[in-house]
């Protein structure tokens, strides 16, 4: 308790410098974390997939594989599981084709403004279901939507629905017709399948539970 006339605590210069230092430190920390995160969320490669190397964001060619979302004992939540190969729209897509398809799908997702009704990875609007794991949704995998659209595979059913959404209503709140072409629909389905393989730290939680509750089984294909 020195009896100095002015205390450092009331010095504007002191607080200005402290503010600058704190802000600077926070920015530097954020930069450093960003470098680390960017490394972890860069897309993997086709080789990673072939060698079973897990990436948080897998290569576009993940559309050539079966995808599941299963509880992981170690991490305490569900994680995407990439399984055996399967055909996507009746063919296996090369790395270039898959990358181009995903790019077209992402462009279409933005152009058609999906995020102003749906949420993607939980972000967006709350007028329609979350699309993060839409590819794995029981609605597509238990025969409901394949039946309604009269298609054999999930991808074909999804593409058909996206092209003529208001022809297949399941609820008073319908998806409007956005003029999605056949190519755009295929690309969008690829985008959705790829998104379902992203490691989202267990979001959405208990995703398979609704299926168990409603259908008395798992949503496995």
């Amino acid at each position, binding site marked *: 308790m020195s009896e100095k006339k002015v205390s450092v605590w009331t010095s*504007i210069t002191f607080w*200005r410098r*402290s503010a600058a230092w*704190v*802000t600077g430190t*926070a920015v530097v*920390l*954020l930069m450093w*974390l960003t470098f680390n*995160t*960017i490394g*972890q*969320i860069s897309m993997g490669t086709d080789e990673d997939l072939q060698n079973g190397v897990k990436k948080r964001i897998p290569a*576009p060619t993940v559309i050539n594989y079966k995808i599941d979302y299963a509880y992981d004992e170690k991490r305490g939540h569900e994680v995407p599981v990439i399984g055996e190969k399967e055909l996507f729209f009746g063919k296996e897509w090369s790395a270039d084709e898959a990358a181009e398809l*995903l*790019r077209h*799908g*992402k*462009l*279409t*997702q*933005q*152009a*058609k*403004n*999906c*995020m*102003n*009704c749906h949420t*993607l*990875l*939980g*972000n*967006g*609007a709350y*007028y*329609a*279901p979350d699309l993060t*794991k*839409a590819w794995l*949704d029981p*609605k597509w995998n238990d025969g409901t939507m394949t039946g309604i659209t009269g298609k054999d595979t999930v991808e074909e059913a999804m593409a058909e629905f996206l092209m003529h959404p*208001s022809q297949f209503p399941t*609820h008073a*709140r319908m998806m*409007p*017709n956005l*003029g999605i072409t056949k190519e755009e629909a295929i*690309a969008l389905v690829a*985008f959705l399948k790829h*998104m379902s393989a*992203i490691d*989202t*730290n*267990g*979001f959405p*939680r*208990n995703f*398979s539970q*609704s299926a168990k509750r409603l259908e008395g089984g798992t949503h496995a294909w």
Partner: protein
Amino acid sequence: MLGSIKSNKFQYESQKLAMNYFRVAIVLFGAQLLMGLIAATQFLYPSFLFEVYDFSVARMVHINALVVWMLYAMIGSVYLLLPDETGIEAVGIKLGKLAFWVLTAAVTVVVLVYIFIQVGPGSEATIWLINEGREYIEAPRWADIGIVVVVLIFYYNVFATYMKGEKTGIMTVLVADLFALAGLYLCGMFFTSNISMDQYWWWWVIHLWVEATWEVFVGSLAAYGLIKILGAKREIVEMWLWIEVLMLFGSGILGLGHHYFWIGTPEYWWEIGALFSALEPVPLVAMFVHVLYDWGKEQGHAEAGQAGHAVKNSPAMAWIAINAFGNFLGAGIWGFFHTLPQVNIYTHGTQFTAAHGHLAFFGAYATILIGMMYLGVQRAYAIERMRMTFKTKMAIALLITGILGMTVSLTIAGYEQVLVERADLGGGWDAYFIAQNLPWMLQAMGWRLVMGLVMFTGFIFLVADLFTIGKAKEHAEQESVGAAAA
């Protein structure tokens, strides 16, 4: 406020330009509310305007009008306080005026394209010309570039005026803050097929705007307001401003982590996000206490002396006080109770977020920007002491009732969604619609629409008040008292 074209007693061109920004801001505020009403109606009656003017379009215009009116009002506020703080006219005022018209023309075109063209094919051309489809920053790329150019002109004006004139603490904070604010916009201007990467940088724009740079901006406006309205001591106010900057940036920058829980980013963001976002309310508490303290103190001084009343502009002071409260309530409480990852995994992407968004944007930003508009009107008419009119009070009462009512409704809806859709059913298509169909949700949405209408009525009072308050007789008697005291 249009009346201020007739009554334009500004000393500085910069402040006349500020009023132009305020005028567009208030029009866009109205547009935001109208779009909100359409979207709220569609929640209840999904066939309303179906495949004519869909929810996605109404919602896009709703949130874009929000962002743009706030940016307009923020630019207006800066042009209003620039000559006061620096003591000189804005350096490039001609260029500034040109930029205003260019920006307004661009915004008009963007909105018309949103409304009439709505969506395009899945190609680069759509992203360049129609919309970018990324929430809040949907503006097509050509407009992005235009915005950058206009903002550069604005920033040049602020920076050059600052360098030439007096360098107050408030101006120093603003110059640094606006630089970060403008620079961050660049993070939202690229395309990637990787949705996680997309959202990582998207949050840099959105979060570092609304939970860091905009908050600091509000702190600066409140500091300016306290000096102008209450005659608070500049040194004390500026010392507190620096402390607020320290706390806001100290918690807000890394608070970004609470958006990185579930978008594909690593787990370490759980701890970082939880820690720093738990700290985020602390500066809001400090700002709250500080505004009330200054008000009480200056009022005490005034009563002790002869002045009688310390407040030189009671509508603006009311809105600044509401800001302190709303910021704490909307950003603080409504943010905090769903920010921890343990809870957020259930609340993420539900109406909880909507409840928080509505109250926080209104409480933290709309309020103080409305206060700045009242300060502008006071200057336009050169009123010594501006008093509230009946319309001011109606606007305050209705806007606050409306926003609180909407927030409570959305919170109830979100709570129901968390319990049924998330905790019980675990998300997915059926889980979503089961939760949407329950009476709790439907009634909450009904009340939300009602409260939206209440808010819109409040908005009409607000506009009417801004138009007429300059000529209201309430200030006259006060003025003569003030003249007698002087």
